[in-house]
């Protein structure tokens, strides 16, 4: 099935949102990421990201559960790190992507950017949820508590609510374009939370340990643990790109459906 042909048959549906300033405007992004080109490109990329996710996840799980040593202080419980840390990184990566995509969407009214922001929100919310729960499961045996209201944990909880707020706002309007714009503004305002999360362990006293990988002066973690961690992080990153491409494809098709329905109603 060739998506390009499908698009040209559909005629005016190529304008994903009828009446919006997309088709007539020429900007740098038009060239590389109009919906038709995105459909062609993403169709080629999806199987690669799917394959990379499966391979990296298998290798990462082998390293994380079998081939890496127990920690000299934390024993076997350190294995939670291999899902907790990549999930937390992805929680922030997804939010950053969402904010950047929202900015491009708000400034240039670029439909694929808007759809990317919308498609990223539930993925980021899932990663944030996993970071919180796996952190809690790690905190109980190591700190003796499931939860503390300290800066790192609280700011990540705020991140989770920002994702939920984004999704709620996105769906709160009858006109999907208005919902995307309102939610995009929320994403940009909420971005201030991302550096707060990153530096919370340096700025405030906290139970949470400081950064041991992404820090000035290089990682302090041993390579027998760093490599499994990076493989799992790679697996999570590929997973994000796989799922976000699938979801953006879904959004593009949904907007074509809206366009066709409008055309049928207005004859």
């Amino acid at each position, binding site marked *: 099935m060739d998506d390009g042909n499908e698009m040209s*048959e559909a005629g005016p549906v190529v304008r994903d949102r009828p009446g919006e300033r997309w088709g007539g405007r020429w900007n740098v992004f038009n060239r590389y990421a109009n919906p038709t080109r995105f459909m062609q490109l993403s169709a080629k990329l999806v199987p690669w990201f799917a394959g990379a996710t499966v391979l990296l996840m298998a290798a990462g799980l082998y390293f994380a559960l079998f081939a890496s040593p127990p920690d000299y202080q934390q*024993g076997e*419980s350190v294995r939670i790190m291999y899902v907790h840390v990549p999930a937390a990184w992805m929680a922030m990566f997804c939010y950053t992507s969402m904010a950047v995509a929202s900015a491009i969407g708000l400034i240039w009214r670029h439909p694929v950017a808007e759809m990317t922001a919308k498609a990223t929100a539930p993925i980021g919310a899932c990663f944030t949820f996993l970071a919180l*729960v796996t952190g809690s499961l*790690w905190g109980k045996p190591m700190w003796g508590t499931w939860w503390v209201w300290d800066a790192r944990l609280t700011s990540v909880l705020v991140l989770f609510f920002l994702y939920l707020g984004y999704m709620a706002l996105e769906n709160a309007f009858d006109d999907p374009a208005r919902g995307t714009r309102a939610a995009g503004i929320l994403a940009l305002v909420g971005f201030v939370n991302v550096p707060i999360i990153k530096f919370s362990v340096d700025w405030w006293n906290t139970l949470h340990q400081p950064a041991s990988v992404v820090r000035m002066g290089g990682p302090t973690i041993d390579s027998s643990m760093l490599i499994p961690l990076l493989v799992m992080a790679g697996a999570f990153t590929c997973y994000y790109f*796989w799922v976000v491409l699938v*979801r953006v494809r879904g959004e593009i098709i949904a907007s074509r*459906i809206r366009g066709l329905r409008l055309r049928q109603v207005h004859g």
Partner: protein
Amino acid sequence: METVVTFVEMGGYAGYIWPAYGLSALVLIVLLLASLRGLRSREAALHDLQRQDDFAAVRSRRRART
């Protein structure tokens, strides 16, 4: 057999490690399947709509001829 048991016990942290991995797997798999199903159903809906659209175009052309 004994090595399997020691592996599953995870040095006494089994009750924390396995839920962490299990829940992560569950969440990521459910999100992936939901995203794939959403795409499939929309593809099917678009396909149906386009067929209707084609029928409508043929009918209006016929009407225009008669």
